[in-house]
């Protein structure tokens, strides 16, 4: 029996899954079991293309789930939009979970029928930056990479010929590589908003590297875990106090780092300079609309207020599109960084948006994407 609040350490029973998947393949096995036992109709997983590319697929095929890739730090995709309109189980970083819940608030995802296996996340990297970093910092040919891992603040790459090379993340970020900007100031590292919160933090002793720590966050989580145990896909044991303490420790170190970096990433801009700052940042916008398309919390279709009243014919000093978006997302932006990732003019949209949304959210003591009790728009209840 799994109960809400349980903390366990577990791994997949299947030898193949255990060795293939990261940290004992528990997550993969839980997802496979959910599909097998009919808890869900589909599973969203990342189909492996290469070490730097994976594509989210929606599958009802257990084999495809088992063959899916483990966590890839350099494939920073947000999965929420792929779950829209379906009954799925899915793995999810904390920001994926936030986006799924925000979509749930907008009636795009039926959260009662969506099972979210959360994954701890210390941050992700852009694939091209990673490739460049491999060449410049690690002296490794990106083609030779077969695996990566973050341990004790170091980023480790494994190559075909069995070598490993580790460099401290601090050092990498100093050199302009490392995690995406939005990951650096993120402080949601353990997906406490998911149904299950899984990760390798707190997996100690001989289990280290071969098992996953898993916390049951709610009834759905209990159902997921129980289902996988019943299906014989996983084996779990209660986490020791020491394991729990270590997990908390790692988490608080990561959170502190995020808070510290936030100050660095968002330097104060004097009142009288801000308008010019925003104009300069946005002057190269080519109106592609990718930031809206990729946004995992936006539920609008192609036509929406931000696009309908924005026209290339206007010669405004600021973009109507961006102003409306800044406004509409000020309550719900989760700063996942997708918009910055896809901007063809390299506008740091996430950072700009965060300058509006973070203070707005903090002032109201509100963090989007944490639970369904808080409304999608402050408009209604948060008075």
């Amino acid at each position, binding site marked *: 029996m799994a109960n809400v609040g349980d903390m366990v350490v577990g791994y997949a029973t299947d030898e193949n899954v255990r060795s293939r998947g990261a940290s004992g393949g528990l997550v993969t096995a839980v997802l496979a079991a959910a599909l097998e036992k009919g808890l869900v109709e589909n599973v969203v997983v990342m189909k492996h*293309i*290469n070490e*730097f*590319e994976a*594509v989210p*697929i*929606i599958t009802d095929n257990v084999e495809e789930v088992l063959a899916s890739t483990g966590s890839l730090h350099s*494939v*920073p*995709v947000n999965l929420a939009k792929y779950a829209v309109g379906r009954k799925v189980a899915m793995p999810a970083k904390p920001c994926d979970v936030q986006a799924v819940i925000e979509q749930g608030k907008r009636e795009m995802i039926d959260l009662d029928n969506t099972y979210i296996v959360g994954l701890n996340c210390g941050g992700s990297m*852009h*694939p*091209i930056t990673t*490739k460049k970093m491999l060449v410049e910092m690690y002296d490794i040919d990106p083609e030779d990479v077969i695996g990566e891992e973050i341990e004790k603040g170091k980023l480790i790459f494994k190559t075909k010929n069995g070598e490993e090379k580790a460099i401290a993340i601090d050092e990498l970020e100093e050199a302009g590589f490392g995690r995406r900007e939005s990951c650096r100031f993120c402080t949601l590292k353990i997906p406490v908003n998911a149904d299950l919160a899984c990760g390798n933090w707190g997996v100690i002793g001989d289990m280290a590297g071969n098992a996953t720590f898993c916390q049951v966050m709610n009834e759905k989580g209990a159902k997921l875990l129980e289902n996988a145990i019943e299906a014989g896909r996983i084996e779990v044991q209660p986490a020791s106090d020491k394991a729990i303490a270590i997990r908390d420790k790692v988490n608080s170190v990561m959170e502190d780092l995020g808070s510290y970096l936030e100050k660095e990433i968002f330097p104060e801009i004097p009142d009288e300079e801000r308008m010019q700052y925003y104009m300069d940042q946005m*002057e*190269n916008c*080519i*109106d*592609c*609309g*990718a930031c809206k*398309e*990729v946004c995992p919390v936006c539920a609008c279709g192609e036509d929406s207020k931000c696009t309908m009243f924005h*026209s*290339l*014919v*206007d*010669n405004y000093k600021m973009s109507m599109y961006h102003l409306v978006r800044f406004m509409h997302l000020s309550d719900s932006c989760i700063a996942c960084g997708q918009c910055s*990732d*896809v*901007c*063809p*003019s*390299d506008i740091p949209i996430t950072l700009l948006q965060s300058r509006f949304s973070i203070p707005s959210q903090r002032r109201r003591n509100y963090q989007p994407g944490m639970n369904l009790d808080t409304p999608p728009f402050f408009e209604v209840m948060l008075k």
Partner: protein
Amino acid sequence: MKEMIYQTVCPGCNIGCGLYIRENEEGALTVDFMKSSSANLGKLCRFGMKLPHHYSKATSMVDGKEADIDAAVKAASDKLKGTRNVTMLAVGATTNEEHLGFTKIADALGTVVNTGIGAYEEIPSECHPSISQGIPLDDIENAGRIALFIDPYVQYPLLVRRLLAAKKNGATIVSLTCCDLNLADENVSINPADYKTELGLDSNSIIITDVNPHSDAEQVKNLLNLALVTGSKIMFMKPFVNSTGVHLLGKSAGQIGLHDIMDGINDGSIKTLVTLNSDLLELMPNTADAAETLEKLDDLVVITSIDGPVNEMATIVIATEPLYAKAGSFMNVEGQVLNNSGESTVGIDAMSTLSQNLGGEAFDFQAMHSKMMESVVRKFTAPKYSELECKVMETAAPAENSGNLISVYNPFMWCNQTDDNDFVIVNMNMVDKLGLQKGGMISLTSDAGSVNMRYTVRDIPDGLILTMKKLPVVTGNTTEVKAEAV
């Protein structure tokens, strides 16, 4: 049907932006980002984001009636068999493999495949590879000085971030386009004769320009000369996804440009035209004129994956699978071979049958792919700038801007795809002079007709009007129009 996910390349220009096309259970398309694509890091421009609107599916037709593809191929074989003077056109809007297949048909008909850019004819062939292939896109970011002869925002938007990065790395950007560019350090207007002295280019500089079917050969030569004398690198952008591939794969000898083809049709020397993903109604500046010309053909055989306007005029349409679904490869401006993940060979197989029916070779995708790899990849294993091998050329002065209405070519215009570009650009002086009302219209009249357009105000030189959309009043790259308030 399950959702299909295709790894493919944006057909908007020859930067070769990688992306995914997802086709859902109902056949609806969405674009998804492929962040590991080195040309674009998964980023896409306005055109790329609107690709689902671009991919309209063509239908095979014979004499105006719907037909299946086999019947269309058969009809085309019957029409073309024994026909002399067949002209073939493929501008580079499909895969290397299909282009090679098309070339086989040309072989069978004893003719060549024209890629439509007339400027090539007038430039020594040793220069062609350098025009065809540019420099690695990453190199732009490390240039010291960049001279821009294109408007990157409108024409090749994925260059914008490269240029911004260059600027961040210390480059100076000089714009010679007609619109003041945000990212340029200097926006200048210089007589071509003075480029050498005024622009301050050296071996650490890059000239970025473009060449397209309407380019003025003299200006191309001028810029090549400029690169030769200053030691600067030069990069020719092109409007079609596989422009680089088709120029490296094709025979350059005996080719003629789009305008020559149209002239040929008009003077009756061309009676039969076969095109591969090349819609002359879209490609020519004035659609009505182009339509009038094409009417004069005896036979127009269109092989295409797009439901373009020319299909309606064609004697035969051989409809192939959409570009994203094709098995095949493209070569982008930096010389990178980019592969589609699609596995369909409908187009190639149809061309093989056609070739065979015309007495030529039969072939399959694999054969064409190997051939492509042999002839292209062997030479260009990794993107690298190849030094110019030609000599400084004699040039005449480029044709003076003969009109005040300038077409700023962009992907939407080449595909004649609807966009929010239903306006022209003027400057504040023109607003004052004509007494244009805010939110009102401007009337443009040329020999070709008259049109009322919305307008917007930007910093552009006095007297000029820019359009990013094909207008019925346009007759060429520039058109003389009379502008009035409505």
